[in-house]
């Protein structure tokens, strides 16, 4: 490795690297021929619209193309061709000139040709079909290389040809002879016309005859006159042009053409001429007189006759009128006497009117008399203009080619360069259906601009002939230029090589060509004659003498395809460039009819380059694609082959179950997300695979449309349906957001990377070195989390550590009465505590409690301990199986199974039958009495890492980072996600809200009753964890009105509602963010009693209150306090409420979020909530429903739960229980001593019975949860044969459909 200098590297690079410039390039480099860009659009070509590309990028591309010699990529305007040419049918690549230098990347490989599958283009079968094409001569009437002299000569030649034709046909002689003959005949007829000898019929026939002759003579005279004038005109023009030619030749000093006009004069006899002349004049005048007689004089006589008849009638009418008038005068007198006679009068009156209205007929005007002199003058003038005047020599013209063309050596430079240009050879190629089939030898133009090809060739064809085109190409040095293209007609099958004749076909090219030399160019203006005012411009045009015919085979059979019908297509044979106006061709209505328009476009073979056809270009393409009518098409590419790739119709697609299954799985629809092994055959998938999904869809639909029928027998009010619908909507929206965001990964999701260490972490890592190896107070290390990937069934277990219990209620007497389940038991994996409101009774018996835990239909129990303060120290194991065997965290969070922990009292009862035969045997019965239970949703067992990744405000982020650094485990939030999925500062949720007025009516707002009643009200709103509702997504906070509307929420919603009520009562209250057992991170409410300086902690979702000093507070750690103004983070060493100071004004204990002067932010809570009164009829209906369900269904259930025993119902017990149940809600809120009173009440009424009762209350969610609560008491497991059951239901209705449901179930054993 030798060191080379940087400059050396640069040098090397400059030879190796090419850096395309982004600056605009010289236009001249990009344009091929003349260095001048042509702007096609300005010239009127249809260019289409190019896509927008950044100019810089375009420049880079251009310079790269130029560097690699791709000048073919540039259009004539010096711009890169950004789109395929609108007129080309298929994309093409530029022509590669030399094969040797072929770029390897565009090298082509040979692929065996295969016929395209377009069937109908080809002939059926393999008949031999052959066309014979004879390209004879091409005669240019105008050619760009013609000089001015040539142009004139071409003119004169054309005119001379016409003149010759006229002379050849000899119209004048023909008409003259005809005229003479007619006159003869007319004269004969007139002679024989004799009124006396002939019958009337014969006479009139003769007369008509003569009239006919006269008309014919007149017509012939006119024809003769026009023929004469045409010939004279033609001669005059020819002589004029000849004059021009002569002057041009004289002016330029050389001859380009050999044309010479010879005028032959024939002297005539003047006398004879005059005689003929006068005779002719006389003849014509007399003929006109005759004509006048016939047409005008006779018509006049006829009119006069008619007039006289009319006059006669009129006179008679007049007489009649007079008579009537007289009659009327008489009749009016009679009329007075005889009313019956009045019938006749009106009729006559009418007649009178009619008669009076007839005007006197007009006498026809007498026509002007035949003015012989005027007619004679007219005739003389006409003859003078048209006919050879008397004495004028007879002239005949002859065009000869006798003039010598000046040789090239003696002409000026410009002319000689023109003549040299004429040496360029031209060839023609023949294209059949757009494919080249033949190329003639190159020929040079003759001096009279003719190309003699004289080549006959045969084309064997396999496709239906659509077009046959001859292209004239002039071969330049490198490329060939297309001069013109001519369409030939495909001959009908009757035309074969035996009978075909060469015929001319005209062609025209609008190609623009101009030269520096004497050539006048094509479609370029030039001055033909020196004295012309405006320049002329002539298009290249000419005639091809050719023939196309079908070949004959050896047997003389025509080799034409069977069934070939010549297309009725006059244009293809003629001039293809002729513009046909669609309006003329198909009429204006046709323009509205796409089909006829398309058809017309198809037939007329328009030139797509012609700007006038620009609007029709899409139509031409549309035909080719064959897919309907492309009206709004402003692009060129189409999915031409899409049709062929549609294997099935859309309808068939929708019926494919497997495809549907795969698609649903791909969309991550809940039911199909984890489906595996989708069968590979369509028939293996049954419709049942979709039933759950479809049912869910249907349910969703039925929620959309108000249809409460199918839902729990009408137990749901319209309000609840509304709530369900709202929840569904929110859930859908949240799920949608969640799943879209789940596919959006951040670097943290993909790559595990160490954080950049700062001083703190570096310091702590330093400190690690010196820290003691075996500390005296070891810090508990958390168990390493198992990743969920390697989990499978059977390997996951739930572990419950049951440690000990406190204050378990004891049996009071033989008639043990377990009361008040509200003495809730809190159990966690580490400790079990019981906070019991009942004081241990001095007369109490011992109790034998044990704990049973059940999860997913599996029950495990601890051993039975003794006494009210038992200690078990046992570990219970419950197997866990996830739905669908999917242990991914998102699925696990959806598990809504509940872990039940029940506390039972085991009683051993003497069940020895009285009439036992064996007195030595004592039979005892184990009876489990339910003491209390505790539900733990699985979602709280499963612990998650925080998935909060919100766009926190910068301050929040700083605050949170600071807090987390100091006490990472303490629960603090600054922003939360509201129901719309937006981050909201937590203080905005807090605002004083008036509680339902019914609740605090008549109570002192600051009193204990009021607060307890509110807490009770809030706790009765059903609890649903966000984790279950919005599985694994996030914790959503809803505002109080949303909460009241949904009637469900988790700790935060309950706590906020309670806090807002408390604030309204004027209490000093805070939201406590902390961790509690068993909820984990949760929210409580803290109130401060001003007078007593006493803090109370409220669990809003249960309604329980704890004093600050209570050691059994479930709240284990306090992270932060929040009110409407501020957030305070707990920076005290201790987080247990009992060891804390709650004075937020002390900065040493509490770190505020806002400074002291900050104004509170506006709240997102409403000013007040409307609590609609609960419909009492609905409540009573609901009581009925529940009772019936429990009595009918549940009775059945209780019966079915204990299949081997008779189940009896104690009716008197029912009514007593109902009485008690009604009082229970009161006793809860008042919290007075009535709770214990009712045992005595029961016992006094029931007499000597053993009574085991379970009053339960819960917020109303649905009937099913009530039934399962009844079941969880295990009251049905009492096996005493004499047992009877009683039950009562009471619902206490609070406003806003908040319902407290009390169910009192009791087992009564008569001990008498």
């Amino acid at each position: 490795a030798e060191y080379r200098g940087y400059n050396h590297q640069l040098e090397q690079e400059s030879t190796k690297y090419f850096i395309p410039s982004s600056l605009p390039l010289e236009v001249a480099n990009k344009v091929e021929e003349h260095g001048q860009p042509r702007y096609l659009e300005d010239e009127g070509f249809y260019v289409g619209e190019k896509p927008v590309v950044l100019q810089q990028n375009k420049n880079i591309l251009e310079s790269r193309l130029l560097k690699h010699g791709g000048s073919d990529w540039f259009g004539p305007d010096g711009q890169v061709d950004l789109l395929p040419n609108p007129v080309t049918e298929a994309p093409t690549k530029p022509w590669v000139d030399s094969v040797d230098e072929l770029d390897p990347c565009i090298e082509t490989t040979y692929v065996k040709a295969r016929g395209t599958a377009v069937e109908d283009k080809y002939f059926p079968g393999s008949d031999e079909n052959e066309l014979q094409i004879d390209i004879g001569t091409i005669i240019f009437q105008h050619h760009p290389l013609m000089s001015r002299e040539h142009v004139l000569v071409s003119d004169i030649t054309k005119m001379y040809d016409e003149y010759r034709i006229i002379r050849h046909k000899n119209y004048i002689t023909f008409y003259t002879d005809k005229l003479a003959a007619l006159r003869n005949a007319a004269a004969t007829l007139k002679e024989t016309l004799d009124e006396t000898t002939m019958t009337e019929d014969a006479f009139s026939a003769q007369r008509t005859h003569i009239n006919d002759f006269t008309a014919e003579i007149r017509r012939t005279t006119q024809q003769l006159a026009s023929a004469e004038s045409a010939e004279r005109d033609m001669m005059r023009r020819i002589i004029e042009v000849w004059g021009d030619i002569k002057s041009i030749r004289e002016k330029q000093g050389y001859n380009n053409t050999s044309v010479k006009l010879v005028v032959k004069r024939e002297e005539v006899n003047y006398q004879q001429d005059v005689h003929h002349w006068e005779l002719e004049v006389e003849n014509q005048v007399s003929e006109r007189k005759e004509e006048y007689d016939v047409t005008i004089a006779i018509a006049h006589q006829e009119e006069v006759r008619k007039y006289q008849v009319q006059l006669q009638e009129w006179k008679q009418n007049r007489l009649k009128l007079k008579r009537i008038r007289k009659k009327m005068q008489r009749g009016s007198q009679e009329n007075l006497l005889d009313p019956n006679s009045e019938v006749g009068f009106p009729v006559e009156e009418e007649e009178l009117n009619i008669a009076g209205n007839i005007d006197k007929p007009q006498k026809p005007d007498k026509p002007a008399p035949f003015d012989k002199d005027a007619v004679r003058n007219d005739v003389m003038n006409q003859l003078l203009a048209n006919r050879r005047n008397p004495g004028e020599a007879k002239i005949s013209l002859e065009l000869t080619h006798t003039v010598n063309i000046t040789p090239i050596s003696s002409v000026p430079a410009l002319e000689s360069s023109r003549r040299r240009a004429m040496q360029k050879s031209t060839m023609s190629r023949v294209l059949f259906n757009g494919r080249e089939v033949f190329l003639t030898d190159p020929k040079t133009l003759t001096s009279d601009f003719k190309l003699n090809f004289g080549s006959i060739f045969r084309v064997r064809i396999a496709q239906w002939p659509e077009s046959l085109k001859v292209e004239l190409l002039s071969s330049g040095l490198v490329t060939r230029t297309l001069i013109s293209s001519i369409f030939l007609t495909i001959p009908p099958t009757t035309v074969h090589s035996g009978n075909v004749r060469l015929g001319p076909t005209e062609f025209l090219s609008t190609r623009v060509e101009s030269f520096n030399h004497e050539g006048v160019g094509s479609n370029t203006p030039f001055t033909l004659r020196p004295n012309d005012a405006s320049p002329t411009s002539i298009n290249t045009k000419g005639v091809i003498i050719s023939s196309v015919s079908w070949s004959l085979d050896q047997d003389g059979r025509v080799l034409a395809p069977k069934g070939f019908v010549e297309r009725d297509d006059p244009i293809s044979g003629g001039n293809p460039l002729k513009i046909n106006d669609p309006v003329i061709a198909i009429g204006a209505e046709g323009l509205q009819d796409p089909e006829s328009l398309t058809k017309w476009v198809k037939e007329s073979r328009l030139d797509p380059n012609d700007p006038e056809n620009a609007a029709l270009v899409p139509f031409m393409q549309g035909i080719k694609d064959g897919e309907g009518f492309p009206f709004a098409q402003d692009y060129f590419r189409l999915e031409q082959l899409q049709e062929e790739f549609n294997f099935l119709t859309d309808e068939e697609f929708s019926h494919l179950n497997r495809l549907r299954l795969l698609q649903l799985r791909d969309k991550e629809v809940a039911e199909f997300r984890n489906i595996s092994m989708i069968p590979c055959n369509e028939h293996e998938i049954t419709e049942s695979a979709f039933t759950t999904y479809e049912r869910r869809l249907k349910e969703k639909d039925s929620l959309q449309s108000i249809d409460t029928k199918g839902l729990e027998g009408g137990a749901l009010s319209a309000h609840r349906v509304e709530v369900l619908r709202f929840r569904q909507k929110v859930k859908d929206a949240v799920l949608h957001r969640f799943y879209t965001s789940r596919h959006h990964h951040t670097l943290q999701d993909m790559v595990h990377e160490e954080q950049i260490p700062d001083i703190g972490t570096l310091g702590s890592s330093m400190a690690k070195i010196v820290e003691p190896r075996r500390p005296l107070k070891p810090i508990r290390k958390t168990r390493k989390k198992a990743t969920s990937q390697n989990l499978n069934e059977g390997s996951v277990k739930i572990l419950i550590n049951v440690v000990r219990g406190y204050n378990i209620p004891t049996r009071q007497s033989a008639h043990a009465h377990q009361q008040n389940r509200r003495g809730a038991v809190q159990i966690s994996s580490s400790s079990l505590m019981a906070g019991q409101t009942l004081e241990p009774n001095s007369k109490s018996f011992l109790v034998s409690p044990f704990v049973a835990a059940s999860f997913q239909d599996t029950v495990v129990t601890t051993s039975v301990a003794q006494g009210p303060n038992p200690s078990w120290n046992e570990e219970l194991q419950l197997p866990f199986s996830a739905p669908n065997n999917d242990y991914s965290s998102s699925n696990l969070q959806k598990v809504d199974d509940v872990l039940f922990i029940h506390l039972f009292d085991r009683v051993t009862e003497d069940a020895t039958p009285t009439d036992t035969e064996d007195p030595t045997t004592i039979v005892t019965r184990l009876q489990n009495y339910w003491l209390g239970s505790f539900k733990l949703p699985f979602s709280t067992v499963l612990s998650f890492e925080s998935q909060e990744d919100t766009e926190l405000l910068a301050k929040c982020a700083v605050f949170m980072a600071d807090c987390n650094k100091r006490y990472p485990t303490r629960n603090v939030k600054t922003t939360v996600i509201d129901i719309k999925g937006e981050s909201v500062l937590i203080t905005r949720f807090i605002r004083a809200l008036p509680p339902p007025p019914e609740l605090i009516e008549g109570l002192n707002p600051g009193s204990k009753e009021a607060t307890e009643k509110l807490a009770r009200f809030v706790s009765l709103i059903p609890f649903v964890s966000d984790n279950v509702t919005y599985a694994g997504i996030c914790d959503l906070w809803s505002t109080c009105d949303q909460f009241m509307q949904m009637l469900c929420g988790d700790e935060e919603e309950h706590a906020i509602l309670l806090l807002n009520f408390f604030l309204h009562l004027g209490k000093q209250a805070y939201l406590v963010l902390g961790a509690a057992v068993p909820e984990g991170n949760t929210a409580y409410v803290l109130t401060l009693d001003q007078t007593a300086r006493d803090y109370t902690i409220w669990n809003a979702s249960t309604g329980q209150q704890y004093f600050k000093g209570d050691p059994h507070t479930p709240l284990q750690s306090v992270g932060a306090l929040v009110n409407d103004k501020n957030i305070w983070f707990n920076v005290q060493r201790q987080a247990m409420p009992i060891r804390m100071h709650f004075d937020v004004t002390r900065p040493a204990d509490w770190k505020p979020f806002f400074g002291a002067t900050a104004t509170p932010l506006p709240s997102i809570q409403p000013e007040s909530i409307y609590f609609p009164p609960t419909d009492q009829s609905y409540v009573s209906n609901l009581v009925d429903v529940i009772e019936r369900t429990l009595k009918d269904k549940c009775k059945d259930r209780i019966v079915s739960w204990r299949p081997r025993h008779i189940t009896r119902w104690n009716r008197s017990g029912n009514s007593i229980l109902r009485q008690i149940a009604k009082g229970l809600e009161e006793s809860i809120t008042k919290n007075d001593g009535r709770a214990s009173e009712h045992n005595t009440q029961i016992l006094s009424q029931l007499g000597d019975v053993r009574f085991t009762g379970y009053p339960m209350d819960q917020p109303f969610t649905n009937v099913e949860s009530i039934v399962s609560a009844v079941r969880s008491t295990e009251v049905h497991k009492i096996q005493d044969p004499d047992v009877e059951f009683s039950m009562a239901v009471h619902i206490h209705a609070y406003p806003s459909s908040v319902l407290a449901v009390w169910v009192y179930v009791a087992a009564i054993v008569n001990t008498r």
Partner: protein
Amino acid sequence: MAGINPNPTVFLLMANGQIESAVFPDFDELYCKFSFVHGQDWVVTSGLEEGISQITRRSRDERQLFVWNFPLDITYKSTNPYGWPQLVVSCYGPDVFGRDIVRGYGAIHIPMTPGKHKVKVPMFVPVSSSKLQQITSWLLGRRPEFVDPKVVAQGEGRDVTRVRSQGYAMVSFNIVTRDLKKLGYDLSPSDVTSIPLSSTVIS
């Protein structure tokens, strides 16, 4: 079920072979982990889905090879070729301080055609997102790693990562399939009638 089912509902894919060797020019010791990643319609009927190899030292000849000869053997049952199984190989090796550092991730589809295949699996590692992190990760020996090695078998989320290529591993496969053709999945070219015995190297 005796004999061959004329109307199969699943197809079988058996792959065995070895992670033979690797070329990582800059390292001395390496071991590798492999795991198979497959779609939802695939089930492993036998064989190990994951494994971890011995640590091997680089050969001291000019080939500089790490040879593991670590056997793979797995049989799949499937109904849908979508989610065709991939072999994910990740290599780890200790650095000078003896800290375990990831040296490369790579994934390759199990070859589809029956026969013997020799496949080269290119490897790459994620790089630190900044220079500073590069230094600290070097100091602390905690290089960036993929959260789950299986992400290299899927395309989702790759756009947020940056990687550097780093050596390659050679894997040989022997593939046997059953009933694929009966289910309409024709994997061999139509003009090949016999199983090709020549090995193909896919790079």
